[in-house]
């Protein structure tokens, strides 16, 4: 089986789903089911009795085969992210933590320095650290060196729907990485998810594109199919893109006739 291996966890689905921005929890849960996703992200929020329906723990526990990956969204420093991770692990029992530190609430770009520091500490504590980063090939290797379970470079800004805007950088990351590379953020359509998988990503994380679709469960299903297709194509060995133009005078004349 072509399974996704993260730490000691094995997943048959390479679509990771985010649970934010849905109109209501019922639709979100339907989308989770339709997507076949086995790893989903959740955020930490204060308990509020008046908004009891926000509490996803019960409803999510009812879906078989789900592993939770809490994120540290809201943290703007490594210390805050580490604290959030400890709390999240208590609640979920899951070793997964998406280290997500974006100090600017407008563009939501991740802070590489705080992210590296949080990742370093949490990895040493046994978390399966999934750091959210810009597509920086050197940062990706530094995170791999400190023991992250994967790297998650953004395709484009969260919710921007710009797709894989920095494919060239992500290609470098994929080529050089010894751990799974998961494109996270910015994917707008299933074809973009398929493209990311064709490039060699191990998985993709999708949230906004499903949550704000006209029909989220259907869109979730479409993404699942696209991710599977892209992965299959990658494994089947895609035809190489044709290269440069032929030179005007033959470059290989010096070789003479083939013996």
């Amino acid at each position, binding site marked *: 089986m072509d399974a996704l291996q993260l730490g000691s966890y094995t997943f048959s689905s390479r679509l990771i789903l*985010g*649970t*934010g*921005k*849905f109109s209501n*929890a019922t639709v*979100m849960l339907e989308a989770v089911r339709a997507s076949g996703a086995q790893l989903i*992200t*959740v*955020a*930490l*929020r*204060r*308990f*509020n*009795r*008046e908004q009891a329906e*926000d*509490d*996803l*723990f*019960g409803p*999510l526990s009812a879906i078989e085969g789900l592993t*939770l990956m*809490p*994120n540290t*969204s*809201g*943290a703007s420093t490594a210390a*805050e992210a580490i*604290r*959030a991770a*400890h*709390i*999240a692990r*208590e*609640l*979920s029992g899951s070793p997964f933590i998406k280290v997500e530190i*974006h100090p600017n*609430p407008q563009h*939501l770009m991740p802070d590489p320095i705080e992210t590296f520091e949080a990742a370093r500490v949490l990895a040493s504590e046994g978390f399966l650290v999934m750091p959210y980063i810009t597509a920086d090939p050197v940062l990706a290797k530094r995170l791999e060196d400190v023991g992250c379970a994967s790297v998650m470079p953004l395709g484009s800004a*969260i*919710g921007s729907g710009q797709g894989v805007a920095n494919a060239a950088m992500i290609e470098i990351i994929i080529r050089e990485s010894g751990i799974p590379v998961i494109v996270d*953020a910015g994917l707008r359509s299933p074809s973009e998810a398929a493209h990311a998988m064709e490039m060699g990503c191990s998985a993709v*994380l999708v*949230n*906004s594109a499903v*949550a704000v679709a006209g029909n989220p469960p259907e869109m979730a299903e479409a993404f699942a199919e696209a991710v599977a297709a892209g992965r299959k194509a990658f494994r089947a060995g895609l035809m190489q893109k044709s290269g440069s133009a032929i030179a005007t005078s033959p470059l290989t004349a010096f070789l003479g006739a083939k013996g």
Partner: protein
Amino acid sequence: MACPYNGGILPDMIHGMIAGWWGWWGRTTASPHMIHGMAQFDDKRNNEEMAQMITIELNGQQQPLPAGSAVNDLLSIIGSDGKSVAVVVNQQIIRPENRSTRLLQEGDQVELLIFAGGG
């Protein structure tokens, strides 16, 4: 404080939780449902104890509580089953097995956290 990432304006977002830890959010009055919860408190407590109230800070807001309450008692008051909630008291995580013995003191800063939607 708006957080576009989680899809809405949520004053009690994790920003507030963390801000609360670092103490720069002002105190506010207790909300009605807290007092209602209080009234449903265990009647076995005698009137003398009921008369001794303490005030803690719960999720950034003032919360009156009978003296001698444990974390589990607080959870009952506010209507949480405790199963899907993480409890942090003065920045220390209180595990379920310790919630009946961990007593709350005047001025304790308590955060109760759940999992909600996020990307």
